[in-house]
């Protein structure tokens, strides 16, 4: 079929696709998390086990991916639903800015936990 209709980037098609892709990534990471923590090795997860894991760079990389995907998926989801109820451009910009800032703050706090706190302890 021809591709002669307008692109989906501004219509909502691309964020819909990314929402689905991030959901699949989240599902895989969540399953990996459960298997790594609860089904392999120690049984009951202790604080020291987590700290030990956090010393490995590959583990932190996975945690970072988890954090980024979860935040993207959550904030994009709120935005997609919030868009239903906002028509004024000013309101949309305001809510979008709040969500982006919220995402940035949570990302910063999460990265501190993953990279800094884990390395010190």
């Amino acid at each position, binding site marked *: *079929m*021809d*591709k*002669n*209709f*307008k*692109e*989906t980037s*501004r*219509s*909502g*098609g*691309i*964020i*819909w*696709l990314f929402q689905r892709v991030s959901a699949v990534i989240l599902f895989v990471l969540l399953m990996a998390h459960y298997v790594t923590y609860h089904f392999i090795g120690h049984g009951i997860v202790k604080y020291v086990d987590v700290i030990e894991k956090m010393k490995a760079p590959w583990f932190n990389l996975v945690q970072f991916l988890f954090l980024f995907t979860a935040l993207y998926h959550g904030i994009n989801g709120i935005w*997609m*639903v919030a*868009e*239903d*109820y906002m*028509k004024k451009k000013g309101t949309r910009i305001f809510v979008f800015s709040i969500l982006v800032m919220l995402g940035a703050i949570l990302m910063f706090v999460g990265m501190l936990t993953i990279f800094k706190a884990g390395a010190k302890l």
Partner: protein
Amino acid sequence: MSKEKRIIKILRYDPANDKKPHWVDYTGEFDSDSTILDVLNDIHWKTDGSLAYRRSCRSGICGSCAMKVNGQNILACETPIHKFKGKIKIEPLPGFAIIKDLVVDMDLFFEKLKKVKPYLVVDKPLPDKEFTQSPEEFEYIRESVTCILCGACTSSCPSLWGNEDYLGPAALLKAYRFIFDTRDDGANERMDIVNDKNGIWRCHTIFNCMEACPKDIKITEYLSRLKVKIVENSI
């Protein structure tokens, strides 16, 4: 057939006399197999002739008598009263402006339907006889062609309640019905129309439309297929 006494609550609204809709109670004895439409007819013919509601075929075909009963969007003509326990609360379809009592303004609904070009668009030379289609090809649209345009799905959609510019499930299902019809040549044009902020992307797969559809059409599933097709064609 046993008769039973039922209390019927109807949300009445006459714009000439009422400031806002209000509930009116009616009591009567009805056969347990009576439909909601039978009950409304009984009230209209014997008790209160001023009650306004739409009806036509009384066979679940015309889609005129969609309304909300005990919280569900149903067709009055094919829903028996024994499906509901206790009081029966009858309201007009939500999400549409009320004209009078149970009659709602469907103009916007049909305007949106027209936007997606709800007819066969043919660019290729016409065949000598009819257009042919294999059973497999027809299977894609078999269920969607049974839509009777009653508006029960569109009226049940929370995305529409929040944004009246949203095309809504009925119009989008009609777009699906023609986009996936192998005889049609207007798919790109229709996809261009529904691929919009107020088009298919306002559907958040809430599934209310599927629950409300009196013809049991898997609307949400078909709209999801349509989303995939649009994204596939734009990548």
